[in-house]
């Protein structure tokens, strides 16, 4: 039996869903089982084999760790919210069913070795995420959820068309394989317009799901309107699931040679520019981090477009950002819960009012901005150095200018929230550390990626980078 099938175990927890007090716990239990299985597969002595449907190759093992650890952090936060505030929707049966289905589907995306299976599973994650974005108390969230759904359908539709073009095989009528491992071993044919079109559509379609310009407009609204836990789930988990699919596409020989490589550079730089302008304009903390997510997607796209020596940096950056976004969105959830606002000018003195939240927002912002010693710093540095080495000096200059703008705009808005004067006079109950423990675990992982990666994890990063063209 393929060991990856154990990742379907959380489906058993669907039977626990029902009474309100049990639902959030069922989700935590499902996520815990999933993270244990994922960790054993990733760093245990499990045969990294592949069959027609599933694979536990290095890409799968690395991203299983990322998405499942981030998901555990998110559901523990949601469980705590549901425990503290019984009016919150986190413990509803609908959210528990959808959450477990989302978790399993996301894991299937990561371990899928068949194009159609990966695509179907990603479609399921979108269909299960959309209803979770909706909050009964926020009518605007329905519009955001619908917009998310439409963009997801269009993005994944374009991606499926891209796969169809890749499999077309030209005028000779031959079909290409639908197995990722076979595709990654197939030499690139010369001058096949279907292939070029396929890769371009895949970049555009999956880019839509990642929030790359020009089809990014769903992202700020969705991240803003959804509950904090769902936003963190989309930003840290679904983003990386989609990224796995894009990485698998770019592992196909010759993927970057045509229009796709250039498209990734252009879309990446455009996304960064759009996000920098929006960060300057926004006064809403959740939107600010949402725009920063578009910025990250842009940096990752540029790194993927470069490939080769940038691959290791892209992986460090992507994994770091999964944890950064989870830490930031969950911290923003706490801020929203206490201050009942997302407006940055209404929040001040967090470090005194809510010390743990303030601390995590501060550290998360430093990591977001690419400060050392976080993995995001090292990742960004490696991408920049690969960009300079590749001679793409125009992109390099644009990249540096946008990063500098983002740095100033984010610092200007966020730091007064942390160290400024308290604007709302209230007596807060003392914050307990326990609800923040998942964020602490993610933070430790984040620092480790910048300072010291244990050999087994480093090998995993290197194997994936090698599959993307790194030496």
């Amino acid at each position: 039996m393929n060991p990856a099938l154990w990742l379907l175990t959380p489906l058993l927890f669907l039977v626990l869903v029902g009474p309100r007090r049990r639902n959030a716990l069922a989700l935590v239990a499902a996520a815990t089982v999933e993270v244990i299985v994922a960790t054993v597969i990733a760093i245990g002595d499990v045969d990294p084999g592949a069959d027609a449907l599933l694979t536990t190759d290095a890409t799968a093992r690395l991203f299983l760790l990322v998405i499942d650890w981030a998901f555990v952090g998110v559901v523990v936060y949601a469980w705590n919210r549901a425990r503290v505030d019984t009016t919150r929707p986190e413990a509803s049966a609908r959210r528990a069913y959808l959450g477990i289905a989302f978790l399993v589907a996301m894991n299937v995306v990561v371990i899928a070795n068949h194009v159609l299976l990966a695509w179907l599973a990603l479609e399921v994650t979108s269909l299960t995420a959309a209803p979770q974005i909706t909050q009964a108390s926020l009518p605007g969230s329905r519009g955001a959820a619908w917009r998310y759904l439409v963009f997801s359908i269009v993005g994944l539709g374009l991606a499926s068309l891209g796969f169809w073009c890749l499999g077309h095989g030209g005028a000779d009528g031959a079909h290409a394989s639908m197995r990722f491992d076979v595709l990654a071993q197939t030499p690139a044919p010369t001058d096949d317009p279907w292939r070029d079109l396929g890769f371009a559509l895949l970049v555009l379609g999956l880019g839509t799901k990642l929030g790359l310009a020009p089809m990014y407009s769903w992202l700020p609204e969705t991240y803003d309107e959804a509950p904090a836990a769902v936003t963190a789930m989309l930003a840290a988990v679904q983003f990386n699931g989609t990224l796995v699919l894009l990485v698998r596409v770019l592992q196909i020989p010759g993927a970057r040679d045509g229009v796709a490589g250039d498209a990734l550079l252009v879309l990446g730089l455009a996304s960064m520019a759009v996000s920098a302008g929006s960060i300057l304009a926004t006064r809403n903390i959740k939107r600010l981090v949402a725009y920063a997510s578009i910025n990250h997607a842009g940096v990752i796209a540029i790194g993927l477009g470069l490939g080769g020596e940038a691959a290791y940096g892209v992986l460090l950056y992507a994994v770091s950002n999964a944890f950064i976004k989870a830490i930031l969105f969950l911290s923003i959830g706490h801020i929203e819960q206490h201050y009942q606002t997302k407006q940055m000018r209404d929040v001040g003195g967090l470090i005194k009012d809510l010390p743990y939240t303030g601390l995590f927002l501060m550290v998360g912002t430093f990591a977001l901005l690419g400060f050392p010693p976080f993995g995001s710093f090292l990742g960004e540095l490696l991408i920049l150095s690969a960009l300079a080495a590749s001679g793409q000096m125009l992109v390099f200059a644009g990249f540096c200018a946008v990063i500098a703008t983002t740095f100033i705009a984010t610092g200007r808005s966020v730091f007064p929230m942390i160290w400024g004067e308290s604007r709302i006079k209230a007596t807060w109950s003392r914050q307990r550390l326990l609800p923040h423990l998942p964020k602490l675990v993610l933070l430790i992982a984040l620092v480790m990626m910048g300072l010291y990666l244990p050999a087994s994890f480093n090998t995993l990063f290197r194997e994936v980078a090698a599959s993307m063209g790194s030496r």
Partner: protein
Amino acid sequence: MSTALVVFVLVLLLPLFLASWRVSLVGLASQGAIMAWLAYDRDGVTTVADGVRLVDLGLVRSLIVPVALYQVMRARGTSARNDVIAPNLVSWTLALTAVLVGFRFAAHMPLPDSERPFVAAAASALLLAMLVLASSERVFSQVVGVFRFENALALFELSRPEPEAEPGFRIGLLVVLAATLGLARWYLRTLTPTGDAPAPEAP
């Protein structure tokens, strides 16, 4: 080009020029029925996968989707008029151009002759669906755009026989389509009071 594909292209175009939501639903139903006929005519029903595809095209897309959307619109007492694209000369020209571009695309790509008309019609359908989605402000029109988009993808898949047509995948696609319909119905019912008011911008 076969008569069925010519009719398919007409069915794509006509609802764009007639400002009625009922006509839009008839258009969706006709697209599904024509695709079901094309699939049956070429492959028959020799495998389980063929059967599932026929259910998908002939039952779900041509009957269940339009009827399910009709029920919501009827229940909400929506007025008969509904433009899926803006009713002006620019939009109509763009629609006709989309069809032309679709056919030029198929003419230029390396394809067996038997596939060329399918790809031309599918590319036209895809571009028209994108046009509907890009220019629609109303939820219903966006829902129609989404299902036009899904139909265009189905026609692309239909353009050549699948070598690995596993029934499991076909069932999976069918379930995803059904779930999309369920969510579309829910949003159509709850997003706006009458289901026809402006919706958030779509791609």
